[in-house]
């Protein structure tokens, strides 16, 4: 789904700080959405926690950086890190090139997959949220 120039697939679930989530077997995969990667500019560093690290929904568990910007990565659900995209260690720009594909960031073993339903999902909800976000960031400039 294209919204005001941003690619926001409507089959994904979104954490409010612009991280997408989707199911992959028993695990969840997450990454940064198109709006966030455009706003951040060229990503130069992604913190890749060790497997097994416990994450708590809504809490910061990693850092991400572009030139002078430092972002926090927030957990979309409760669970554990079950894998990271090691390609990002040497090619963090994959997030800019292909944020929904080769630029995926983490795999999560969720405590309860049902928590996905608390994330932003569905065409209408995504559109409403993104429109508000675009307005919010435009005001901040």
């Amino acid at each position, binding site marked *: 789904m294209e919204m005001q120039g941003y690619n926001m697939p409507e089959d994904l679930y979104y954490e409010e700080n612009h991280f997408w989530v989707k199911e992959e077997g028993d695990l969840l995969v997450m990454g940064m959405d198109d709006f966030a990667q455009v706003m951040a500019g*060229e990503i*130069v*560093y992604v913190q*890749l926690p*060790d497997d097994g690290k416990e994450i708590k929904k809504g809490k910061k568990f990693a850092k991400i*950086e*572009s*030139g*002078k*910007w*430092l972002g926090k990565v927030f957990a979309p659900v409760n669970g554990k890190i079950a894998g990271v995209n*090691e390609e990002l*260690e*040497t090619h963090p*720009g994959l997030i800019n090139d292909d944020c929904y594909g080769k630029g995926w960031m983490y795999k999560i073993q969720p405590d309860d997959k049902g928590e996905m339903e608390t994330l932003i999902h569905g065409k209408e909800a995504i559109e409403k949220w993104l429109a508000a976000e675009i307005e919010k960031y435009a005001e901040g400039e």
Partner: protein
Amino acid sequence: MTSNYEFEKEFREQILRCSRCGFCQAVCPVFGATLRPALNARGKMLILKEVMDGKLDLNDELIETLFQCTTCATCYKNCPSGVNVPEIIKLARKDMVRAGSCHPAFKGMNEVLDKHTNIYAEGEPEDFEREKNRQAENVYFVGCVGLYREDESTSATLDLLDRLKVDYTLIDEVCCSGVLEDVGYPIKDHLARKNIEGILATGARTVITGCPYCSRTFNNKPQYAELREKGIRIIHITQFLQGVDFGVQTDKRVTYHDPCDLGRHCGIYEEPRNTIRKIAPNFVEMADNRENALCCGAGGGVRGAYAKNSIAMARRRLDQAEAVGAEIILTECNSCVHNLANAKLRKQKFKIYNTTQFINELMEAAE
């Protein structure tokens, strides 16, 4: 004919003195990461000679080479002709800015410091749960990177000062803005004034800085002359802590990374080593150390403007730490900690700390 360029007025003779021997190329961290001759000191001196000869203009075409230098000064220390490349580059950058050509990251940084109190344009920093601006013997001045990027290290440093019962206070500090002098702009007078007033209001006789660049700025720049004239001593935390008996040791294999701003620019090599040897008998030097230490790649604005190359430079430094089997890399600069930590690969199991943070961890474990 008088030159239009300040770099030529001040450094023409030095630039012509460059014999193109290439000693600088062997030690330049930017060349080491990019293998591009135009980016090392010799290449830059050749380009500036062309500018002096009227064959090139200072324009946007030269941004990539003149603004891609960490000002680490390894070239200067190794130059048989004594060409002070970092000072030449800094003045040429000011000429570039006057000519209307500047890397957008640095133009942005200058604008940010007109509106904000830190280089990251961020809001209120951590207060580290300590009362600020109180009367004390010492001011601990953190610096932007320690406030906004390496706050865990700063918090540990403050814990260490508390353990040692040091009488210090934090202040509502703002960016010292010394970094602007490296990237083509002058220090902001209003920021310097706020820091000076904040420091003087505490009655402190000593300012301890967590950042070696802030220390250089306070000690050397005319905008901060009032501190010196009023007898305020400005030292880096490594100088403050030398001589302290911490009563703890580690058996881990520890190495030390010399920050350029503390080492080559201030000549402070032994103070941190004296401290580290006390706490780490299994101390080992990297192949390049002291005056020849390899730069981490963060200085001179390169981390902000050429982040990928900056991290590539840090990886080269980490390779040297790996080669000596270090389990712990200590340094004395939050920018170095930040860049080295960003560059560390998951397979590399060593840890990177400011010395203060590591000592605090040892003391905490011993309690």
